[in-house]
């Protein structure tokens, strides 16, 4: 499939997903065009709205990259959510344990701690996948739940802030807070960091031997084996990179936005990362765009609910549809086109033909 067909198909899939969302908005008794107008204007052209979009886009972008890199090696990392939690935990523990470093030293170290946490959480499914053949999808899924409970325990027990009414940790020191990007808003430099990671990963995949090996294992494992690529190490490396990216997303949430570790602080960004990755057709350089788009959808969903009255869960449906339809659009045709509409159209044509034949007979 050449790049142009792929882009066209993804565009069609997106339009279809938005249309189905539109039908739901209509069912809800509102004007879908008005609702979408409010949604997109608010999330992209309004200062506060756009800042909100950027805040959500930062963890989504990193979580998306955390899916893309392993997937390029043929491994499904569904564990982004858990890796975000463990990364956030490691980052927060480091920040709270050593609170007196200067920011220029402390912040990078917090990122390193978070990356180690995420990588550690990804190393378990990676090892099991590479050396025991255990299905990584199920392992990473199960580990998400474990990670959430571990953080829940940490903030209710050892990390619980003094006199806290809810389970949350002490605040991290002022020096460790990420600089604000847009004045008077919550928008921190997280998205810029994500952009930098995107560029690095893009060039790594395209122009370095180890990046190429990763791609080769994903595209054709047998060819990679013939070429002498160590598949197991490649799979593990891909997962570790993915895990550390998601882990850093956790740190960004903690030192960029909330300044504390909370119970349930991630809000499903790990799962959003799957949508980001698919919408980007697994190309890292496209991921910032798709992360912005999805973050805009989810940031605008609340505004839409307040301004127009449409239930914001419509946007969750659109997200799910985006994955279904984009995945369908990306299936490589083998003997016949696997486009979304074609089977339906063929069915219709056949039915009309039989009807005509019946009439003639």
């Amino acid at each position, binding site marked *: 499939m050449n790049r142009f067909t792929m882009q066209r198909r993804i565009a069609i899939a997106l339009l279809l997903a938005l249309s189905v969302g539109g039908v*739901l908005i209509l*069912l*809800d008794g509102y004007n879908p065009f008005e609702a979408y107008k409010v949604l997109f204007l608010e999330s992209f052209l309004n200062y506060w709205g756009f800042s909100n979009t950027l805040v959500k886009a930062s963890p989504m972008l990193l979580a998306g990259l955390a899916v893309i890199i392993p997937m390029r090696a043929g491994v*499904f990392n*569904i564990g982004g959510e858990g890796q975000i939690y463990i990364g956030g935990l490691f980052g927060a523990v480091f920040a709270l344990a050593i609170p007196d470093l200067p920011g220029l030293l402390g912040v990078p170290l917090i990122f390193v701690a978070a990356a180690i946490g995420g990588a550690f959480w990804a190393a378990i499914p990676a090892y*099991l996948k590479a050396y*025991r*053949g*255990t*299905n990584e*999808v*199920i*392992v990473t*899924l*199960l*580990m998400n*739940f*474990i990670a959430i*409970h*571990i953080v*829940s*325990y940490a903030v*209710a*027990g050892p990390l619980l802030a003094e006199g806290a009414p809810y389970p949350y940790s002490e605040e991290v020191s002022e020096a460790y807070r990420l600089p604000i990007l847009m004045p008077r808003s919550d928008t921190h430099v997280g998205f810029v960091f994500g952009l930098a990671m995107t560029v690095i990963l893009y060039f790594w995949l395209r122009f370095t031997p180890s990046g190429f090996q990763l791609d080769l294992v994903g595209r054709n494992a047998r060819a990679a084996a013939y070429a002498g690529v160590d598949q197991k190490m490649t799979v593990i490396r891909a997962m570790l990179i993915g895990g550390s990216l998601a882990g850093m997303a956790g740190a960004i949430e903690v030192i960029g936005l909330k300044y504390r570790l909370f119970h349930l602080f991630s809000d499903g960004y790990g*799962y959003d990362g*799957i*949508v980001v990755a*698919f919408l980007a057709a697994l190309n890292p350089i496209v991921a910032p765009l798709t992360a912005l788009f999805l973050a805009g959808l989810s940031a605008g969903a609340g505004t839409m609910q307040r301004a127009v009255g449409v*239930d914001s*869960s*419509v*946007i*969750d*449906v*659109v*997200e*799910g*549809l985006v*994955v*279904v339809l984009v*995945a*369908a659009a990306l*299936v490589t045709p*083998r*003997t016949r086109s*696997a486009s*979304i509409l074609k*089977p339906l159209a063929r069915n219709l044509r056949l039915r009309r033909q039989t009807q005509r034949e019946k009439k003639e007979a």
Partner: protein
Amino acid sequence: MIDLVLLGDVLAGTARLGTPIAFAALGGVIAERGGLYNIGLEGQILAGALGAAAGSFATGSAMIGLGCGIICGLISGLLLGYMSIRLRINQLVGGIALNLLLAGLTAFLSRQIFGAQAGGARVNGFSQTDIPFLSDLPVVGPSLFSQDPLFYLLIGLAIAAWFWLMKSHKGLDLRAVGENPKAADLAGVPVFRMQYLAIAVSGALAALAGVHLVLSQVYVFAEGMSAGKGFIALAAIILGRWSPIGAICAALFFGFCDAVQFKLQFTSPEIPYQLFLILPYLASLIALVVLGAKASAPACVGLPYDREHR
């Protein structure tokens, strides 16, 4: 004596908490034997739960709720089937997408159906039914033979599924499709029809898990009420070695972990309760690792079948 009461309680909890996982796991076994991964179990549980709640809410009849739940499950199963069989989307991705989609859709629809009282709209459900004589047995009597009708349905379906899959001609066909679709096709088995049948039944069974949650446990629909049961069911399939009976035993084992967890929360409040919440997931993981998964999985599960491909 106290220990016997405790044992009875834990057994009853095992049956109650394990039933939804068991339904979903049974559904997963049927799909995977036919060569299709059903990662969408989690979403289908929600679909079944919403169907059951809506049906019972609208008519006041638990039986109609049951019917609606099953229909929702069938539809969601066929949707996944269309994605996996016709569109040949990667089945893991398709299932994850279905979960996202159904989580959103059920939340949206429940707010439409129940309106502002969402979460507070109690619906009619099933009550526990005593089986004469057996329910009078000590310890196991009250716990295993005073359950709700869906538990007995589960036992019946498990045995039926085992006979169908292992002893009947059609079941053999389905297993052949999962092992080697090309050979099955050449032998005249309608591969795609069998797969659609399997995935639809799979969706309906997963939906029964949701029906049980709503009509036998909490009597309301809550967003995200499946709470990871579909994923535990995926582990139960592997743990149960792709056998209907085995999967149900594994599911009941997870139910047992959950029941023990609840008991320990009450009896040992000094231990952080999150440790107990982790227990079933950790048990699944360890079971996956220790027992491995490769050996007895259907050989062609997850690979879309393409008639024209050599």
